[in-house]
């Protein structure tokens, strides 16, 4: 098949768009918005591996996002460790916690797994808020340093935009490669029928744990990038609502689709900005848009738009 060939073209296209956008867009506000899209894409991408491909829900992914952000904040501010060392530390800590939480939790399925991860997310959120000697408590954590790499400073909006999107592109490639491998097929087989997957020899519990840990790593990376972008973090950013928002990005963008994560993250980041003009009706319109997407494109944006495209092509041929 020509699939790998098309993937390569898609990667090059994304890279070209990113580079061009960085050159053409000079408005700081827009650049920051695009950077946020990148960070949210990382979150959605990680959860999509777990939810879209393996079919396992997590309502507590904001916890890993927060663990990434707080780990780098604590290490760089309290211990004056270089952010570039704090990054692997943040990811490893999130992965370790995901492993410890995942072993008992992933034995659950369906609603029960949702409740389990929900509880986990709440515990971590309360920890951020109440462990004030380390996390700064409810008032937040200030003074997170900007990122620098030798002579290159990422304090500027443009450089940070490039940094974040570099990570996004790398993550897209990593996810694509996993999905197209034995591991990815194993994950999808769990989604289609866990009992059957087990019966043909797929080690489902090990695989679910691995993908849970992997998605935690992506979330921690997003948290790290978020912390060094805004220099200030507070528990409110990593609460239950954020977990739900990540789930929404995956569902709206399209489950089991790499590009769906990108689309879902873009829509959910941009929508609130566009809807400012509705002032007090903002949330109403926001909700209505999400509802209509689900009603008219129940497979998510990626699948839905592709179906519309294919249908129009067919009717043209006729």
């Amino acid at each position, binding site marked *: *098949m020509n699939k790998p060939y098309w993937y390569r073209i898609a990667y090059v296209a994304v890279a070209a768009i990113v580079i061009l956008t960085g050159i053409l867009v000079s408005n700081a506000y827009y650049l920051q918005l695009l950077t946020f899209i990148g960070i949210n894409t990382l979150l959605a991408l990680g959860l999509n591996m777990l939810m879209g491909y393996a079919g396992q829900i997590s309502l507590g992914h904001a916890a890993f996002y927060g663990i990434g952000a707080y780990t780098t904040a604590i290490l760089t501010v309290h211990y004056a460790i270089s952010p570039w060392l704090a990054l692997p530390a943040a990811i490893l800590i999130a992965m370790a916690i995901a492993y410890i939480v995942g072993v008992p939790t992933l034995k659950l399925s369906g609603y029960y797994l949702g409740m389990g991860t929900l509880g986990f997310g709440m515990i971590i959120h309360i920890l951020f808020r109440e462990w004030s000697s380390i996390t700064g408590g409810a008032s937040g954590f200030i003074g997170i340093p900007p990122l620098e790499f030798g002579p290159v400073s990422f304090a500027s909006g443009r450089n940070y935009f490039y940094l974040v999107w570099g990570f996004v592109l790398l993550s897209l490639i*990593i996810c694509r*490669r*996993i999905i*197209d*491998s*034995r*591991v*990815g*097929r*194993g994950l*999808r*087989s769990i*989604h*289609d*029928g866990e*009992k*059957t*997957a*087990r*019966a*043909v*020899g*797929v*080690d489902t519990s090990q695989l679910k744990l*691995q993908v849970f840990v*992997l998605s935690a790593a992506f979330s921690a990376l997003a948290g790290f990038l978020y912390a060094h972008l805004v220099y200030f973090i507070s528990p409110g950013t990593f609460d239950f609502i954020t977990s739900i928002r990540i789930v929404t990005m995956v569902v709206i963008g399209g489950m089991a689709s790499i590009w769906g994560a990108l689309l879902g993250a873009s829509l959910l980041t941009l929508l609130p900005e566009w809807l400012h003009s509705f002032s007090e009706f903002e949330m109403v319109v926001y909700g209505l848009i999400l509802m209509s997407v689900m009603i008219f494109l129940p497979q998510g944006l990626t699948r839905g738009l592709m179906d519309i495209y294919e249908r129009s092509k067919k009717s043209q041929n006729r």
Partner: protein
Amino acid sequence: MNDQKKARTDNQPLLEMDAVSKSFGGVHAVRGVSFWLEQGTITGLIGPNGAGKTTLFNLITGVFRANSGRMIYDGKTTHDARINELVRRGISRTFQNVELFESMTVLENILVGQYTQTRCGIWGSIFRFPWMVREEHLARQNAMALLEFVGLEAYAEQKSGDLPFGWQRLLELARALAARPKLLLLDEPAAGLNIVETAQLGELIKKIREQNVTILLVEHDMSLTMTVSDKIIVLDQGVKIAEGLPREVQANEAVIKAYLGTTG
């Protein structure tokens, strides 16, 4: 009995069940069943509905744990072994109601079937080491060969859920073979197939035996069971009531009674 049959009897048994029992609450699904399967033979497992055939399958494949009794597979006990470990050791199965990965392609279904035969993990897939590329290539070749064996090679890229039912059965059989089984358990493989398809299936089953795969077959279609089986085991209400050559079993009084009710 001819010499060929005798030679088979001298073989080491691949699977030995020794007084195996399983109950669910107060229901005794399988009660003290003992038998052995000789290497490279086809054994038909028959019995009325609720006789415990499917429970027996689930015991052999490790889905259920026996309450008592011993199971020796390939010289070693299967007690406490996990399902995927048993698949790796060569026990493979198909299902009564075809259970494919419907959103995946025909080829991908077979590739999942090779899960225990391949070993690429997350790191291997990210970095695409040369050995992983070779493994993937080989896996695809094997998968295509299996599709050719069941005659589905032209549909490799189709979504498996879109295949007609008879082909789905064949695909499931190919997926079970992808695990390179020594023991293949077929749970009503002819259910829902027409006469022609059933005959083709019979030929395939015989061909699989030629590759020295031992087969345990649950089947209601007596014409298939009686023609392909070397030995028949009859279960009724969780108990083994007869065992022997197909024509011996057909003449067995207990069997007739179990199927037709008491003769007064």
